């Protein structure tokens, strides 16, 4: 079972990230995936997070107790949800938006300039999808194929191509980052 928290601010596609990953896991990987969203009274710009529990069997408790994975797209999101992380957890963050503190326990951290990559691709709106590609490569909670199937169903038709590009950018960057992390562990 994996408990995943996506955190950022409204408008970044944080809830959408949870939906895409959950759809991929439950419909295309045939796992059980329960996504819950929480939001304050704010909409755009306010703190926002979604939680996704992925499991081989039915998810009985729908919320996060100790997150295995924190995907942080804002400093406030990181600050709020870092304490709930498992000591064995993985932290994935946008390196231009989040400055993590000293890592606790055995937490491993992976950084990506997701928003910058998205801007290079032409629209920062796909920063969350760059991050999802990165997430897929590093965590292996959902398969690459499942994500590639879930993604086009989850975005407007005219934006499919851009989103797939954004996903690949994050995914390839993630494969390299995972490799680097593996190499450094060996040394």
């Amino acid at each position, binding site marked *: 079972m994996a408990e995943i928290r996506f955190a950022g601010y409204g408008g970044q596609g944080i809830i959408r990230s*949870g939906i895409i990953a*959950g759809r991929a896991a*439950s419909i295309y990987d045939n796992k059980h*995936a*329960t996504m819950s969203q929480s*939001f304050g009274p704010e909409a755009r710009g306010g703190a926002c997070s979604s939680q996704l529990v992925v499991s081989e069997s039915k*998810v*009985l*408790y*729908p919320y996060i107790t100790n997150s295995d994975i924190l995907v942080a797209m804002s400093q406030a999101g990181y600050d709020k949800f870092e304490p709930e992380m498992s000591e064995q957890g993985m932290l994935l963050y946008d390196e231009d938006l989040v400055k993590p503190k000293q890592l606790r326990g055995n937490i491993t951290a992976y950084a990506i300039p997701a928003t910058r990559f998205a801007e290079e691709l032409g629209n920062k709106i796909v920063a969350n999808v760059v991050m999802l590609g990165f997430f897929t490569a590093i965590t292996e909670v959902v398969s690459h194929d499942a994500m590639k199937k879930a993604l086009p169903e989850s975005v407007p038709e005219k934006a499919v191509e851009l989103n797939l590009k954004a996903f690949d950018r994050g995914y390839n960057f993630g494969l390299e980052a995972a490799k680097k992390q593996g190499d450094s562990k060996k040394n």
Partner: protein
Amino acid sequence: MKADPRGVLTGVYYIDGDVAAGYGALAAGCKFVAGYPITPSTEAFEAICHRGPQVGAVFIQMEDELGSISAIIGATWSGVKTMTITSGPGYSLMQECIGFGAMLETPFVLLNIQRGGPSTGVPTKTGQADMMQSRWGSHGDYELIAIAPESPQEMFDYTIKAFNLAEKYRCPIMIMSDECVGHMTEKVVIPEADKIEVEPRRLYTGPAEDYLPFKPEPDLVPKMAKAGDGLKLYITGQTHDERGYPVKDAEYKSKYGRRLVDKIRLNKDKIIELKEEGTDNADVIVVSYGISSRVAIKGVELAREKGIKVGTLRLVTVWPFPDEKMSELAKKAKAFVVPEINYGQVVYDVARCAHGRANVVLVPHGGAGVHNPNDIADAIEMAAKEDKKIEGLIEFKTRLEKSVFEGGFKLKE
């Protein structure tokens, strides 16, 4: 009768419970929804607004909840299947017309996505504290049916069931869901239309001059007519005879009023749906409904790891209450553990049926969250160890309550 394929959005979706309930309503043949959008039920409105026009269903945003429920009662009498959707404060405002609907034997579905209360409460977070209101909310004697789904798939499936029960028993059906299930996104499979059974309206087909709008069939439910179809209709909120004309004497009040409760009570065995697991040799039985029954299984698993014999009884339909089942279990088990997201509601009916034969432990939750499964496991363990019969309710002190109140408020001398 099979569902009209027009309303059935066959496919595999990843949607939340609210949307699933909206799709369920359309699949069941709902053609009219009136409501006043309120968190956390808004996504159900959106689903109806978005998909409704494509399948011939109409949504009207009314001026308030009184108007909403009145509009669906009127629309039902025009011959269509109807629903309203609400939460918390809106549910309170609808109470008068729930009784009106029951009195007129009007089939409709009310989707209540429960949130924290009373009053505005915690609008964006969960609660199960409207359960007794769903049973007793309107004045006077009446019975209705309440269903508590635990997942988005069940929101789809049981919304269809709710529409079918409404037509079958001609009464308002409450879907007593909650924010957690409403805002929970999961895989939902919508089958083909020919796999979905829908109950048609029980329309009168005999000679017009013989029609009596409130004359019961053998199962105590009368046949209905559509307003404007030429049959003579007299419909009033006053207690009425078979013609629909007001009566006021005690004997008639008794005769005609009684049927409103008896048509549910006497058909109870056909209405009640329970999910029972491992109760045969259980020392402790967890009785729960909705999201709490789902979270409770986690607690049951933890308790079983400690070797405790524990079973579960899930009330899929909460009302009418399964008195006989509960009394029978009370003879076998040592105790019932009842987790609910309130400070004690359905637990009182469990205690009523336990009749002192089994202990009854309430695991309360104040709302804005769901139970910690460890609390449910600990309550089961406590109940299993207790060999004395304890009168009245035993309230389990949860971790949350201990941390905020040190186990509960106390009056100062």
